[in-house]
C-alpha cells in the first residue's frame, strides 16, 4: 500500500517537478466495492469460543484427573454450585454462535444483488514459495453466505439444544470446545477462498468429527468409530490432495477466482485433466459426504453425542462434499463423465442407504442411513448440474434432519432416564424398546412428524420442493438433446423416484415404532419418560418452522404458476436459484453448451408440475399406507427380537455387508501385510542381511583363525605357500 503510493508520488514528482507531496495527486480507486461486516470475526468467534472452552476444559480435566488418581470419581454437579468450568460454557458456546450468526445474517442481508465477483479478504500469506501463492484468505459470495447461515444458524440452535442435552456430562466444557472448534473449521471450509484454504477446514472438521464421535473416549467402540471416521475421511482427502496438485499444475494457483475464471479457457471440455480433477475431488467429497463406497463411517459416527450427529453428521460437515462440488461447478460442467459418475454415485448411495435404513432398529442408525441417502440425492443433483437444487436440498435437509436428530436426541434423553430407572439393561436407542412415546412426549412427536413429512417430500413441507427439484432436473437433463448419458440419467431418475418413496416408508416406520403403538420400556422405565426441557424443545420448534417454510425459498417457477393463487403472496419464487446465479451461471452456460437445453418433459412424458403432484401424492400414500400397515404390527422389545433371520431383510439389516467386506478385503489383509512387512521384510530380509553380514564376518574370521593352530610347522607351511604364490605370480605368470 505504502509502496504503491510512493511509486505514484515519485512518478508525479519526476513529471511535475516541485509539486507538493502532502496530498497524493492520483490514487486511482475503483468504485467502492462491497465491504462485509467483520467477516474475519465470524470465523474468529468460534475459535475464541474454542480457546475459552478449551481452557475451561483443561481446568476441569485437571480436577477430574486428580480424582481419578485418588481413586474416586469427580462429579462437578455434586456440590452446592456448579463450578465455573461447567457454567461458563453455557454462555460462551452458544454465545459466540449467536454473535457469529448475527454477523452472518448481517452480511447476508447486506450483500448487494449485483455482486458478481466474490469478496475476498486476505489476512496473510499462508504458503508462499516460488510461484505458489496460497493466501490465508476468506471469501464471501452468495454460496458461502448461504452456507454460513446454515452453519451458524443451525449450529446455534444445536448449541442451545446441547446445553440441555449435555448438562450432566462431566466433560461439558470439552464438549463445547470441540463443538466451537468444529464451527470454526466449518466456516473456514465454506469461506476459504481457495482449495487449499478449503482443505484446512476440510480436514479440520474431520478432526473435530473424530474428536466428537469419540467424545466418550473411554468407550472403546466409540473411539473406534471416531478413528474409522477419520481414516475413511482421509482416504477421500487423498483424492482432494491429488486434485489440488492437478489444479495447481493446470492453473498455477489454487485460488477459486483464478481457477474458475481460467477453467474454460485452459481446460478442454471433457478433457482428461478436468475429468481427473473432478473425479478426484469427487473422491474427496465421497469421503466427507459418506457416499458409497466410503459411506461406512457415518453410521458408526452415531456413537457421538446426538447433537453432534445432528450438527456434524447431518446438517453441516457431511454436506461439505456437496458444497465442494457446487463450488467447483465450473469444473464439473466441463467434465460430463465426472458428472455422470457423481450423479451415479449419488443415486446409488441414495438407494443403498435407503434400503439399509428400512431394516435398522437403532433410531440413530435409521437417521444416519437416511442422511446418507439424502446426501446421495444432493450428489445426484450436483452431478446432473443442478447445483442450486443440490444446495437447496442441502439447506432444507439441514433443517429437517437436524430436527430429526435433535428429536431423536430428546427421545434418547428421555429413554436414557427410563433405562436408568427401568429394570435390566435397556438399549436406549433401539426402537424396539420404545413405542407409544407420543403419550409422554407429544411435542417432540409432533415436531418430528413435521420433519418426517418434510423428508418424505410431501407438499408443502421443505423437502418436497428440494427433492422434487432434484428429481425433476434429473428427468429434464435426461431428455436434453445432446446429453451423451441421457439413458443413464433416465435410470437415475427412475431410481431416485423409487428411493424417494422408500424414504417415506422408512421414516414412517421410524415414527411408528418410536411414538405409536404400545410402550415397550416397561412400567418402571415408562414412569421416567418425559418431555424434554424447554432449552431442548425451543430449538426443535425453530427447526420445525424452518422445515415447514424453508422450502419456500425456491419454489419452482412452474409450480408457482400452477398455484399462483397460493404462491402469489410469497415473493420467493426461485429465489435461491437467482441468488446463486452469480456462482452457478458459468457452469450452467457450459452445460447448456454441451448438452443442449434441458427437456421440458420427463422420460416417460409429463411435465414438472404433473410429476411433482404425482410424487407428493405417492409419498403421502406411502406414508399413510405404511403407517397403517406398520401401526398394526406387534413389536417386541429388542431383547426378544433378533431381527430378520434370512434373505434380503437380513442382508439389509446387515448393511449389505460393507463393513465385513472391507474387514475381509482391506483391513485384515492390510494388517497381515503390515505384519508380514515387519516380521519378514524388515526382520528377516533386511535385518537378516545386515546381521548376516556381521555373522559372515564372524564366520569368516572364525574359519580363518582355524589356520592359526599354534603349530610352528603349520605357520611355516602357510608362509611357504605364500612364498610360492608370490614367486609364482611374479616369476612364472609373467
Amino acid at each position, binding site marked *: 500500500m505504502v509502496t504503491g503510493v510512493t511509486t505514484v508520488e515519485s512518478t508525479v514528482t519526476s513529471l511535475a517537478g516541485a509539486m507538493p507531496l502532502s496530498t497524493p495527486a492520483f490514487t486511482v480507486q475503483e468504485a467502492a466495492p462491497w465491504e462485509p461486516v467483520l467477516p474475519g470475526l465470524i470465523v474468529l468467534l468460534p475459535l475464541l469460543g474454542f480457546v475459552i472452552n478449551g481452557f475451561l476444559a483443561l481446568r476441569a480435566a485437571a480436577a477430574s484427573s486428580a480424582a481419578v488418581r485418588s481413586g474416586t470419581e469427580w462429579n462437578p454437579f455434586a456440590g452446592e454450585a456448579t463450578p465455573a468450568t461447567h457454567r461458563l460454557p453455557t454462555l460462551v458456546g452458544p454465545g459466540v454462535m449467536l454473535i457469529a450468526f448475527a454477523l452472518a445474517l448481517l452480511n447476508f442481508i447486506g450483500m448487494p444483488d449485483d455482486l458478481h465477483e466474490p469478496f475476498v479478504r486476505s489476512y496473510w500469506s499462508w504458503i508462499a514459495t516460488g510461484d505458489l501463492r496460497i493466501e490465508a484468505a476468506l471469501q464471501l459470495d452468495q454460496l458461502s453466505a448461504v452456507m454460513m447461515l446454515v452453519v451458524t444458524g443451525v449450529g446455534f440452535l444445536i448449541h442451545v439444544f446441547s446445553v440441555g442435552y449435555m448438562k450432566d456430562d462431566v466433560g461439558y466444557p470439552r464438549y463445547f470446545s470441540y463443538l466451537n472448534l468444529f464451527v470454526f473449521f466449518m466456516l473456514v471450509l465454506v469461506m476459504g477462498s481457495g482449495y487449499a484454504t478449503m482443505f484446512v477446514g476440510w480436514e479440520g472438521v474431520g478432526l473435530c468429527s473424530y474428536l466428537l464421535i469419540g467424545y466418550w473416549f473411554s468407550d472403546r467402540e466409540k473411539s473406534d468409530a471416531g478413528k474409522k471416521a477419520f481414516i475413511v475421511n482421509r482416504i477421500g482427502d487423498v483424492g482432494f490432495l491429488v486434485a489440488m496438485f492437478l489444479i495447481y499444475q493446470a492453473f498455477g494457483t489454487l485460488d477459486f477466482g483464478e481457477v474458475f475464471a481460467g477453467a474454460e479457457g485452459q481446460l478442454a471440455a471433457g478433457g482428461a485433466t478436468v475429468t481427473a480433477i473432478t473425479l478426484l475431488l469427487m473422491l474427496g467429497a465421497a469421503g466427507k459426504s459418506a457416499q458409497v463406497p466410503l459411506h461406512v463411517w457415518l453410521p458408526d459416527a452415531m456413537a457421538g453425542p446426538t447433537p453432534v450427529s445432528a450438527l456434524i453428521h447431518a446438517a453441516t460437515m457431511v454436506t461439505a462434499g456437496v458444497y465442494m462440488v457446487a463450488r467447483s461447478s465450473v469444473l464439473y460442467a466441463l467434465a460430463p463423465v465426472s458428472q455422470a459418475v457423481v450423479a451415479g454415485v449419488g443415486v446409488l448411495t441414495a438407494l443403498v442407504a435407503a434400503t439399509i435404513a428400512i431394516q435398522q432398529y437403532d433410531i440413530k442408525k435409521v437417521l444416519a442411513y437416511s442422511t446418507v441417502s439424502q446426501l446421495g440425492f444432493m450428489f445426484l443433483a450436483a452431478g446432473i448440474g443442478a447445483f442450486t437444487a443440490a444446495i437447496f436440498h442441502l439447506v432444507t435437509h439441514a433443517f429437517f434432519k437436524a430436527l430429526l436428530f435433535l428429536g431423536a436426541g430428546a427421545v434418547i434423553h428421555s429413554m436414557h432416564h427410563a433405562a436408568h430407572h427401568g429394570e435390566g439393561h435397556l438399549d436406549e436407542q433401539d426402537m424396539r424398546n420404545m413405542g407409544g412415546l407420543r403419550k409422554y412426549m407429544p411435542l417432540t412427536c409432533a415436531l418430528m412428524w413435521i420433519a418426517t413429512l418434510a423428508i418424505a417430500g410431501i407438499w408443502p413441507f421443505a423437502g418436497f420442493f428440494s427433492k422434487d427439484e432434484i428429481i425433476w432436473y434429473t428427468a429434464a437433463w435426461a431428455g436434453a438433446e445432446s446429453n451423451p448419458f441421457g439413458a443413464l440419467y433416465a435410470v437415475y431418475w427412475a431410481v431416485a423416484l423409487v428411493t424417494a418413496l422408500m424414504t417415506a416408508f422408512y421414516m414412517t416406520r421410524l415414527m411408528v415404532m418410536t411414538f405409536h403403538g404400545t410402550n415397550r420400556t416397561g412400567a418402571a422405565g415408562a414412569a421416567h419418560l418425559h418431555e424434554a426441557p424447554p432449552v431442548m424443545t425451543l430449538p426443535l420448534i425453530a427447526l420445525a418452522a424452518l422445515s415447514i417454510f424453508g422450502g419456500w425459498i425456491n419454489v419452482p417457477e412452474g409450480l408457482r404458476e400452477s398455484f399462483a393463487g397460493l404462491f402469489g403472496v410469497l415473493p420467493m419464487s426461485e429465489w435461491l436459484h437467482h441468488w446463486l446465479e452469480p456462482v452457478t451461471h458459468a457452469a450452467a452456460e457450459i452445460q447448456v453448451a454441451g448438452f443442449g437445453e434441458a427437456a421440458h418433459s420427463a422420460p416417460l412424458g409429463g411435465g414438472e408440475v404433473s410429476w411433482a403432484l404425482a410424487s407428493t401424492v405417492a409419498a403421502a400414500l406411502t406414508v399413510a399406507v405404511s403407517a397403517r400397515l406398520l401401526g398394526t404390527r406387534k413389536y417386541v422389545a429388542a431383547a426378544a427380537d433378533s431381527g430378520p433371520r434370512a434373505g434380503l431383510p437380513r442382508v439389509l439389516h446387515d448393511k449389505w455387508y460393507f463393513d465385513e467386506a472391507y474387514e475381509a478385503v482391506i483391513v485384515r489383509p492390510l494388517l497381515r501385510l503390515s505384519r508380514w512387512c515387519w516380521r519378514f521384510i524388515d526382520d528377516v530380509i533386511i535385518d537378516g542381511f545386515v546381521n548376516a553380514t556381521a555373522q559372515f564376518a564372524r564366520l569368516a574370521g572364525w574359519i580363518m583363525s582355524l589356520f592359526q593352530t599354534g603349530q610352528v610347522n603349520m605357520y611355516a607351511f602357510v608362509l611357504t605357500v605364500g612364498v610360492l604364490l608370490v614367486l609364482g605370480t611374479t*616369476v612364472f605368470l609373467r
Partner: protein
Amino acid sequence: MLLDYTSSAHYVLALLPEVVLSVWGMGILVAGVSGRHQGGSGQELGWLTIAGLAFAALANGWLYFGVVEETATAMIALDRFRLFANWIFLLGAGFAIIVSLPYVARQRLQAGEYYSLILFAAVGMMFMASARDLMVIFLGLELMSIGVYALAGFNRRDRRSAEAGLKYFLLGAFASGFLLFGIALVYGATGSANIQVVADSVRGGTAVGALMGPGVALLAIGFAFKVSAVPFHMWTPDVYEGAPTPVTAFMAASVKAAAFMAFLRVFLVGLDGLYDQWWTILWWIAAVTMVVGNVIAVVQSNVKRMLAYSSIAHGGYLLVALVAGNDVAAAGLLFYLLVYTIMTIGAFAIVVTVGNQSESNSRIEDYTGFGWQRPLLGLLMTVFLLSLAGFPGTAGFIAKYYLLLGAAEARLWVLAVILVLTTVVSYWYYLRVAWYMWMKEPEAADGPRAAAVTPLATHIVLVIGVALIILGGLFPGVALDLATGSVDGLRQAVGEAAAAAAAGP
C-alpha cells in the same frame, strides 16, 4: 653443517644417534649386571635408558635440522626420511620403556638386559631406516630381530612368553632366510647391494631379469613377514599374545615401523623402476592383509590377541601406501607410523594396567565396567581405540586419511574402498572394547580390577599421548609438514641418480 666424510669424525657424526644408543645400551647392560640393581625394581635403569633415548633424539634433531648430506649413495643415508623414522623408533622405545617400568618391576625381570635389549633393537631399527644398502638392512633387521626374539621370550617364568619367543625366533629366522636370498639375487642381478645403484641399474635396464624377478619377490616376502602381512602373518598373534605386554607394544609399533621404513626405501627408491611389476603383488597382499587382519580380529576374545590382529590390519593399511608408491603415500606412511606408535603403545599400556602389570585380565570380559572404575584410564583407552579405528577428531583419522590421499592420488580406488570397508569391520572390535568398558555392568561377583597402582609417570605419559592424538587430529599441520618434508628428497634422488647414470658412460 655439511658432512662430506672428509674426516673420519664425520662417520661418527653421521651415525651419532646410533652410536649414542649403542654405547648407552652397553652401559645399561653393564649397570644392570653390576649387582647394585640385581633384584631391585630397575626403575632407575629404566629412567636412565630413557635419558639415553633422549640424547639420541637430540642428536637426531641436530642431524635433522643442522646437517646436510653430501652424497646420495652412501651406505647409510643421512636424509630426513631416516631421521624422521629415527624419531618414531625413539618415541616408540621410550614409550615402551615407560610402560615397562612398573611391569618389569612387578614381574622381576632383569632390568639391565631388558632395557639394553630395547636399546639395541632400536639401534637395529635405526639402521633399517637409514640403510642405503641391502646388506645393512639385513644387518639392522637381524640386530633388531635378535633383540626382540629375546625380549619376546624374556619372561622365563611364563611358558607363554617362552613359546612366543620360540615361535618368533624360528619363523623370524626362517623369513630372514628368504629376505637374504632375495638380497643375494638382487645383488646378483644388479651387481650391487647399494639401493641407489640398484635403482640406477633397474632404470638403466642393466639388471638381469631372471634374477631380479625372484629377487624382488623374495625381498617383498622378507619384509612382508616383518610387517606381518598376510599370508606371512601367522606368527603375529601368537607372539603378540605370548610376549610380555610392553614388549608386544614395542613390537607392534616399532618393529613394524622399522620394517616399513626399509620396505619403503627398498621398493620406492631402489625398485621404483620395477613398480609395474611389483605393485600388483603388493596390491593383493595389502587387500588380503586388511581383510584377514580385521576379520579375524572380530572373533577374538582376548584383547591382546585382538590388538595383534588389529596390528596386522594396520600393516595392511600401510601397505596401501607402498602400493600407491608416491610421495604423498610415503609421507602418509611416515605420519601414520608416528601416530600408530603413540596410539598402539597407548592401548597396550592400558592393557598392561588392566592386567595388573602382568599377563592376567586380558580377556575382553575383564574390561567390563573398567571405564567407570577408572574413568581416566577408560577415557584414554577409548581415545586410543577411536584413534586406532581412525575416527575423526583423532590423529588416527588424519593418518588414515593421509594414506587414502596417497591411494587416491595413485587412483587406487578399489584398494581405497577395501580400506574403508575393512575399517568399518575394525570399528566393531574396537567399539567392543569400549562397550565392555562403558556399557556393560560388571557382575557382582567380579572383584575390583586394576588394583595395582599405575605409576603417575604412566598416567602422565598416557595423557600426553592422548593429547598428542587429539592435537594431531585437530591441528595436524606441523606434524604433517614434517612428514611431508621428510620424504622430500627421498625419491627425487632416484631421478637425479638416474640422470647421472644416463649422463655417465
